[in-house]
């Protein structure tokens, strides 16, 4: 199996995996970074969302061989104490029910707000459309993104 060195959460991490291994499984199985979740394996649900060079990507669709020289951020690396403003907004609104989809939601929201700091509700809906939530927390997701953007929900 080939060796790769991945830049994840500002660390250089060596892994030995098949070249076609999706980043999702490298994170979960090789690196103990289990905050990124499998929901569908087809890029349809967003539970596996990470940042690659600041952009939200579905890690289940990213073979590790394509990630040389890219900077990856996972939910664990968003903030050292888990207190990124988006994470704080999520706590303020107590968004989660089961919680399984929420890391993907947060990562998607962080990248979106960086690109669109003062979004309309329609823009939020469009940006978050790729993140599924089975428990039905969408109203609070909306409110949390608005709070993080400094917009009144």
């Amino acid at each position, binding site marked *: 199996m080939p060796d790769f060195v991945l830049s994840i959460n500002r660390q250089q991490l060596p892994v030995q995996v098949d070249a076609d291994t999706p980043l999702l499984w490298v994170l979960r199985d090789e690196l103990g970074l289990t905050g990124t979740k499998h929901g569908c394996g087809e890029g349809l649900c967003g539970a596996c969302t990470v940042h690659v060079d600041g952009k939200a990507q579905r890690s289940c669709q990213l073979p590790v061989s394509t990630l040389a020289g890219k900077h990856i951020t996972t939910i664990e690396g968003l903030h050292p104490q888990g207190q990124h403003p988006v994470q704080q907004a999520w706590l303020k609104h*107590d968004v989660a029910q089961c919680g399984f989809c929420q890391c993907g939601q947060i990562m998607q929201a962080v990248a979106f707000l960086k690109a669109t700091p003062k979004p309309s509700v329609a823009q939020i*809906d469009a940006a978050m459309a790729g993140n*599924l939530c089975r428990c039905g927390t969408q109203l609070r997701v909306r409110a949390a993104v608005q709070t993080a953007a400094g917009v009144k929900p």
Partner: protein
Amino acid sequence: MSGVVLQRRGFLALVAGSGLSLAFDLHASALTGGSVGAQPGHSFKPNAFLRIELDGRIVLIAPAPEMGQGVKTSLPMLLAEELDVGLDQVTVEQASLDATMGALQEAGGSTSVQKNWLPLRRAGAAARWMLVGAAAQAWGVPRAALRTERGEVIHDASSKRASYASLAAAAAQLRLPDDIPLKDPGSFRLVGRRQPQVDGPAIVRGAPLFCGDQRPKGCLVAVVIKGPVFGAKPLEANIDALKAMPGVVDAFILEAIGEWTGDLMVRSENPCLQAGVAVVARNTWSALKARKALQVRWSQTPFDGDSSDGYRAEAQRQLGLPGEVWRNDGDAEAALKSASATIDAFFELPILSHNSMETMSCLAEPLPGGGMRLTSPSQYPSVPVEALHRVLGIPKDRIELRIPRLGGAFGRRWESDFSLDASAIALRVKAPVLLFTPREEDMRHDYYRPFESQRIRAGVDAKGKLVAWDQDRLVHSFRSPQTPKITARQFPVNFIPNLRMRARTVASNVPEGAYRAPPANLHAFFVEGALNELAHAAKMDALAFRLQLLGEGGEIKETRFNPARMKAVLRLAASKADWGRPLPKGSGRGIASWYSHGGYVAHVVELSVSRSGVVKVQRVTSAVDVGRVINPNGAEQQVQGSVIDALSGALLQQITLKNGAVEQGNFHDNPMLRMPDVPRRIDVHFVESTLDPTGLGEPAYPPLAPALVGALFAATGIQIRSLPLSRHKLNWS
């Protein structure tokens, strides 16, 4: 170690007793097993639900599995309330399976809060009693002169205060009396106030809370592939080729053990292991690649030609047969003939898959000496233990079960299949095994909400009173032509003088399981749909029609259904939803209500439909009566979540079969509502109540779909009697 653990007999008295008699013996320096910490010290552990650590930390135990329904917060609130501590002052720990807790660990049927309401309050009150006693002794003052607040005992007269931590050692020495008073709910400080959920910070930072996040040393990953037709067995497979693949540790045919029982009730008594091909690998990707490379020949079954079209045709054929009469009040046929206006409606609901975001998982770690440690996201943690014992022969006292956080359940994780699969594989490979289920396997090997159809003929008199009701139920049954025994007492039984209910069976090969709010998740659509159509036939407002039907009577003993409580939620929802205010053509409101799992819920759905038939739900207004609400924050989430869940199902979802196999596999062909289609408003209103709490995981689900369909009719004149809406053309002019 002078911590005192409640003797088992005494604890059972605490759990099961009347609340008045809590007699048990406490030895001053009892050293019962199970206490935390091995060194001599002063931890206080009066029962299985709370303890005070040596360092002063107060730990509250959450007995029931947390699956998003909020019980890891609401149940500790009961302990904290009676103990008089804030949730911010404690650490909450999830209990592992604890045989002494019995039914308090069950997360299903919307019963956790109801079951735990008195036992947990008693547990908290007992601890508080002992802590107060310790202070009374230390200060030489009577109990009555003391009060408690936020983890302290306070003697106002002398301004003395003592933390619970400082009193713990002395409290552990005390005996409990027979009679411990509980707080008057009027003085509740926590219960009834919005609390954030205890795992919030852990969730947002990606802490390893779920089963699949655990990776003990030497852990392998297993994937099980089952036949596309339920019950098919693998006859041969390219096992050797799979075993040669990099990362694959083993591959084998998992033989069935026990009779394959797709029927819910039979399965609960007789768990079985389904046949399949197991792949075990060092990591998930290697297992998934092996799954992709699998070539397998499945056995033939009598159901290889089954299809949803075939099941539908069978339902129509059954409708032509006499059927079993389950209820026959008055003379429905005669009353129909003399009715002023009648309806004759055939309703259909499809199979639904559970689609929890976390697919089926389980970690099984073989223990030395033949036991097993499970980390199983089971809703009823005693069920996998029983299944492992019966099916795999593992002695029950050698099975440990740790309860992780569940990534959604909705009834699916009541089953023991994932626990059995993981354990059987772990026994075979003699290593810890994490069972992983790809989404396609999860969607195609579910225990589904079954299909059902109903024909309802009903009639009203000249005043719009419902006088005739003839209901033909085409009930799903797994592989059996026999109609399942069901008591015919659902609403509107008792409210219509001439009511006949008949049942016939449509047998299928589809394994049936519990899906959120069973069987109300079927019945409400049929009955409430019929009521909306009857209201229209009677030229009455749908709200007024229901209020008239519910009448002025008292609680029905058979079902404990109280019509006054239902009328109250109907009126509340209607008033908050601006019911009756006109809307332009293309927009409309619908109303429906249902009583299930002890709860009363009414929804008003307001939507608009574009001329080309695109539906937009503008807002949902929900009124809920579940007695005393423990955590309004979590309760609101359950209602909003149920509404969105029901909308997903009603608008988008169905599982269909062709050539014996499920056709859908992932979210592209069995979708879930996405953010742009979630209504901007789901306004939840609770009836303020001092009645003992009932549950809220389920009751808000059933009435949503009929309210949606009613709104659609109001907006467009299009009458929908089958779901999902995506099957229908809704363009109008």
